[in-house]
């Protein structure tokens, strides 16, 4: 009887067994050690170590959790492991690319005159000298940088009005008419056009219009806008669609004409999304190589005229430097220049993405009291 009187320290009916807070770290440490041991038996390599440890970690944590916490918590842990694992796998190539380009590209980028000079007059003799005597690597990407900026800018100037007006037609006037449906279909088809085909189209078009052999920055810009327009149409269309119909009706009810409503109400409301969509479209085409090769050729000297003469761009510069090194016997300096150009290209794309975010934030409708 006395036993029933003393308060029994009973577990709350609402709690179950719980793993200690440090459980994932303990399992991780064990998995790493065990993984290293297994790999040591069959020949160690870092990649295999990561894979084996990840599997061991998942099995260990889920098993432990199932034993202590029950099956629901164990399933939760398994799902968490899978999600985090997928995230890490998707991150792997990105980190690897950025790391490789940084390591290989930095020497080229830090080379004095890399951003300020062209390849004009840089011959294999210079490269041989720099390899043999340790003379600094000469030549740079100024001409390619100019070309990339001019070609992309011109492509944007062509694509944005065409793309934006198309999306306005689709959203505001299309009404699911046959023409609107046809445009939507062909825009989808255009999204999938291989970039080399776009380049060939622009080249063939200008050969027919301006004579055979016409290769200028403008031809490349036309090729790029063929790739850019569907992206701009699609992103602007989505942005215009999410503008609430109530705002259009509010403007109509004030006696505002439809085109003014679109210009003054719909577009300003959607402008942040449109602008960031355009910026991402630019980032998408700035690294195109094939269409520029067949439309603008490859120049080694500075050409500031986008409408005349061959023009270099960063992707074609990389391509030619790797494929046809300036000095065939000593490709090292060309390699260094190519990786430097690749680094500059990646930095440009990153800046554009940052710009897209900034633009979206600047144009976003301001809330506040």
């Amino acid at each position, binding site marked *: 009887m006395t036993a029933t009187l003393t308060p029994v320290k009973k577990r709350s009916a609402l709690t179950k067994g719980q793993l200690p807070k440090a459980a994932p770290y303990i399992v991780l440490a064990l998995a790493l050690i065990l993984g290293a041991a297994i790999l040591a038996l069959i020949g160690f390599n870092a990649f295999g170590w990561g894979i084996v440890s990840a599997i061991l970690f998942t099995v260990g944590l889920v098993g432990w959790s199932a034993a202590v916490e029950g099956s629901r918590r164990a399933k939760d842990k398994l799902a968490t492991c899978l999600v985090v694992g997928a995230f890490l796998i998707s991150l792997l190539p990105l980190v690897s690319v950025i790391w490789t380009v940084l390591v290989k590209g930095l020497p080229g980028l830090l080379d004095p005159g890399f951003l300020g000079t062209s390849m004009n007059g840089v011959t294999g003799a210079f490269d041989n000298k720099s390899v043999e005597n340790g003379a600094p690597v000469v030549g740079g990407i100024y001409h390619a940088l100019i070309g990339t900026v001019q070609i992309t800018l011109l492509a944007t100037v062509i694509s944005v009005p065409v793309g934006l007006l198309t999306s306005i037609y689709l959203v505001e006037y299309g009404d699911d008419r046959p023409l609107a449906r046809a445009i939507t279909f062909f825009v989808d088809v255009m999204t999938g056009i291989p970039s080399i085909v776009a380049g060939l189209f622009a080249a063939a078009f200008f050969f027919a219009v301006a004579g055979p052999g016409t290769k200028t920055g403008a031809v490349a810009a036309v090729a790029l806008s063929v790739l850019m327009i569907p992206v701009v149409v699609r992103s602007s269309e989505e942005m215009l669609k999410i503008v*609430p119909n109530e705002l259009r*009706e509010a403007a109509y*009810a*004030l006696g505002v004409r439809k085109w003014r*409503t679109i210009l003054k*109400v719909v577009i300003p*409301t959607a402008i942040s999304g449109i602008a960031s969509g355009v910026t991402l479209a630019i980032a998408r085409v700035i690294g195109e190589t094939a269409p520029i090769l067949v439309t603008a050729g490859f120049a080694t000297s500075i050409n500031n005229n986008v409408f005349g003469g061959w023009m270099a761009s960063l992707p074609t510069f990389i391509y030619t430097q790797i494929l046809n090194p300036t000095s065939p016997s000593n490709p090292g300096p060309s390699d260094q220049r190519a990786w430097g150009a690749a680094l500059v290209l990646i930095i440009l794309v990153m800046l554009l993405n940052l710009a897209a975010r900034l633009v979206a934030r600047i144009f976003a409708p*301001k*809330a506040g*009291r």
Partner: protein
Amino acid sequence: MSKRIDVKDLNVYYSKFLAVEDVNINIDAKSVTAFIGPSGCGKSTFLRTLNRMHEVIPGARVEGEVLLDGDNLYGPGVDPVTVRSQIGMVFQRPNPFPTMSIRDNVLAGVKLNNKKISKGDADALVERSLRGANLWNEVKDRLAKPGSGLSGGQQQRLCIARAIAVEPQVILMDEPCSALDPISTLAIEDLINELKDEYTVVIVTHNMQQAARVSDKTAFFNIAGTGKPGKLIEYGDTHTIFSNPTVKATEDYVSGRFG
């Protein structure tokens, strides 16, 4: 500056579907008319035909006549934009333009139409409209702030100010208080009472007490069943409709026996 509306034999369609059938109604100038009836009976649809907002929806069309002081809104050569600048509308959900400040929202009808207006005139118009909408004292110190920062009731009054800033003849209100709390609703009802001194007001409401409180005349719409067209069942003085209706369905509805 207010005009009367006479509707003759109006049928309203969505593509082939007849939504509202054979409406005849005479709405007096400088009065408040309430449309009541169960959901889906075509009150809002009919209201939208009174300033040609109905045809904004693809496939929507109208047969019959709507006369604004004798001029047919649906006559040949009538520009719907002109109609809408004379007959303003306030919607169910407050919809101030999110990209504009409070001041610009009030001036939207002027600015969006690119009419030139001096700064002095604009300031006077903003103050007059906001005072007319009983909002001036609450927002006069933050006219440059975005309209979306206001409370729901304030936003709705901002929308009313925006509607009266274009100086319409008639103001249509489509359940203007259904998204608002009782205090904001009271503010808007007071406002409707003041507006009828200058404007013809037509209001759609689900709230029968509200119809009884604010309107001079009431129109009861009903629907025979799903898929059937809505009809105007009874129209008369609000007092009569609520105390002594002639049609059984009206009596059932206003006494709360259905709907």
